[in-house]
């Protein structure tokens, strides 16, 4: 199947410089695919889809009419990032996460950054994600954000930006690991030819980090993954990670707190739990402190945590750093704690709580993307250029009523990568979510989750909104290198 009729349509395309010239980094891949028969490639695509279905790699959609499980759409044409591009991203991500971790620790303890007036205190106190209960808490080894999934986008000039920091319970890593297995089956020769950096050791890094964050001296702390249960959209991932690490997957109802210690209910009675990789939001963690109506959490968990008897990853309270209003200050945060300029820039952002900025946003709404500061999953946002006058008007009303809840950003023309659409190649917009583990060391998994907006011209890559994924390959800058070396 050939790329002959592929059109870049004026977008930045990660495969092609123009309609006929492919980039050096993808040359080997393009040549391989050009040599493959149409039927052969389509068969591999079909086999990959079947593998996802049979493995039950699904996600749940809250409002879907087709029952609760949907298959995650997957396209076998890989997204390719060169080694040198990646090295820079990796540095930038580490820099950002070190600074954000210092920031969170500071906010809940000494508050120097507020005293020095780098960030207005009001922004912190008014955030839904700020947890006064975490004041004066020092989590084990001063690590707050153990697992982060940072969303990156690439613009028409091929520059990477940080779009969002996800420091609460970022999901998607299971797709990265499963996609890689499936890609290896689809393109075994390419994996032999190219030096593709492996991702399979993620569960090992995760497990080591969870071991590391338990303060007490014990040879092997009991680690559990706390899930909201089978109805959660990321349940597949929770179960996948628990299985990969060989740890118990528990729900709130499996746990009980006695004398500030956490136990799980087993067929042999109660067993003490030392570390919880919790995939439940702060709000639902402990009905005694946060939402009283939560049935998902464990009463007494926060007291056990405060007493140092159980470690929680991520620590409660980290959400403050992915409030989108705080996002605007991240370059300042990096400068303040590290004395460095950010390696990966932010997307220019307007904070609507600032009256001047608000006026600008209202006057230019047709060109901007407006988002809620605590939203996720592509819900509750307005994409200016794709919206009707009526929708814009409704959004302006909301902005005036509660400006603190919103930020706005210019519409960035995301880079594109080819997908197989029926029997042709077509370009689609993508983003990238690398995963960062903060334990004894900071590890960034090479590549990460490439999310694809499968609908033509769509910029929304969220799985809940018709997005899908691709495998992401970080390869050597000179793909010929390995071939000749052998």
């Amino acid at each position, binding site marked *: 199947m050939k790329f002959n009729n592929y059109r870049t349509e004026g977008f930045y395309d990660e495969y092609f410089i123009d309609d006929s010239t492919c980039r050096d980094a993808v040359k080997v891949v393009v040549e391989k695919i050009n040599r493959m028969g149409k039927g052969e490639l389509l068969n591999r695509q079909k086999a990959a889809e079947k593998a996802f279905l049979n493995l*039950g790699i699904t996600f749940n959609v809250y409002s879907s009419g087709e029952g609760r499980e949907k298959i995650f759409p997957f396209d076998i044409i890989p997204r390719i990032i060169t080694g040198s591009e990646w090295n820079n991203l990796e540095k930038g991500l580490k820099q950002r996460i070190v600074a954000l971790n210092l920031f969170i620790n500071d906010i809940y303890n000494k508050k120097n950054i507020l005293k020095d007036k780098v960030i207005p205190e009001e922004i912190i106190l008014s955030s839904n994600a700020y947890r006064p209960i975490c004041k004066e808490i020092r989590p084990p080894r001063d690590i707050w954000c153990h697992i982060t999934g940072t969303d990156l986008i690439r613009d028409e000039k091929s520059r990477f930006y940080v779009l969002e920091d996800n420091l609460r319970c970022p999901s998607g890593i299971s797709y990265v690991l499963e996609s890689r297995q499936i890609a290896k089956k689809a393109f075994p020769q390419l994996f032999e030819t190219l030096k593709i950096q492996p991702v399979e050791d993620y569960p090992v890094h995760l497990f080591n980090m969870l071991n590391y964050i338990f303060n007490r001296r014990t040879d092997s702390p009991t680690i559990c993954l706390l899930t909201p*249960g*089978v109805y959660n959209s990321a349940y597949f991932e929770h179960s996948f990670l628990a299985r990969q690490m060989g740890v118990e997957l*528990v729900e709130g109802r499996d746990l009980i707190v006695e004398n500030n210690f956490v136990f799980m209910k087993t*067929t042999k009675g109660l067993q003490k739990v030392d570390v919880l990789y919790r995939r439940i939001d702060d709000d639902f963690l402990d009905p005694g402190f946060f939402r009283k109506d939560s049935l998902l959490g464990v009463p007494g968990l926060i007291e056990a945590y405060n007493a140092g008897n159980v470690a929680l990853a991520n620590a409660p309270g980290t959400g403050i750093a992915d409030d989108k209003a705080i996002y605007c200050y991240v370059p300042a945060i990096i400068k303040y704690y590290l004395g460095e300029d950010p390696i990966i820039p932010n997307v220019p952002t307007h904070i609507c709580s600032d009256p001047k900025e608000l006026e600008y946003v209202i006057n230019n709404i047709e060109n901007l993307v407006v988002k809620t500061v605590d939203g996720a999953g592509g819900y509750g946002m307005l994409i200016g250029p794709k919206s009707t006058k009526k929708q814009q008007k409704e959004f302006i009303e909301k902005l005036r009523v509660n400006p603190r809840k919103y930020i706005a950003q210019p519409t960035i023309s995301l880079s594109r990568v080819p997908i197989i659409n029926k029997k042709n190649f077509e370009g689609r917009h993508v983003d990238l979510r690398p995963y960062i583990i903060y334990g004894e060391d900071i590890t960034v998994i090479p590549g990460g989750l490439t999310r694809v907006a499968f609908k033509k011209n769509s910029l929304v890559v969220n799985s809940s909104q018709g997005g899908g994924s691709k495998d992401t390959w970080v390869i050597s800058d000179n793909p010929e290198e390995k071939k000749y070396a052998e």
Partner: protein
Amino acid sequence: MLSRVANSLYWLNRYIERAENIARIIDVNLNFILDSDISKNEQWEPLVWISGSKEYFFETYSETTKENVINFMLFDKRYPNSILNCLSMARDNAITVREIINIEMWEQINKFYMYVKKISQRKLNIDTIHEFLEEIKINCHIFSGIQESTLSRGESWHFGRLGKMLERADQTSRIIDVKYFHILPSSMSVGSNYDILQWAAILKSASGFEMYTKKYKSVKPDKILEFLILDKEFPRSINFCLHRANYSLHAISSTATDTYVNKAEQSLGALNSELAFSDIGTIVKSGLHEFIDFFQLKLSRVNQDISYKYFDINEYQLLQQ
């Protein structure tokens, strides 16, 4: 092991075994009919009786035709034990223990469920029903095979086998009970050729025909009952199932099988011994249907005791430990 997980493994196995046996019960009835000249609808009524969901059936269907009854038992959403419901429940349980069972077990359940679901959305083709029932049995066997050959013989496996064996004991008793509801035509009597043919059909539904004839040579009702209820070696006989279930239940608590440390072990051990020391003459004399009724009642108590001990651990009980 988490109580919730133990519960899921137990029920996962029960539902797969149940699905297989519903297929067997339909199969035995199909076999009866091939040899009979009785009006057709009458032949299918017994299955509705033994389903325990007669009310649901007559809410939807007016007659017990072959198509209606088969559709009810295979796919009806309101019949809790329809094969589709069993597989859906098995799958729901498997989802919650996906990290405990291995990936092949999960894939098999998932594929199996999706296959049956797909068939359920088409119009029922009665001509290919035999093949479909066969397909269901084979898929259940594949699941068991994967479980047997890949799962470590730890607590997970024992809870699974406990569920599977108790369900099978229960279902074998139900297959035998189908015969009770099939009143012989007036021209035929007990021991007639037709009667013998029915007994042979029951044997075949339990996949026991070859094993039986090897042991007893000729088809005699008493011997068939002895084989299906009391045989020590045939893996679908009630006695065999209870014996294996008892072994697993004791393995979970690491107790010798000739003693007990909890209520569940006591009630299962007692029921197991009762059968192990019984003989078929006594059972038949006391009434086969009555025997089966009573047996099913005791078995459901065993199930309750297991639940209470291992699955529904309430906090009060925990604090006593």
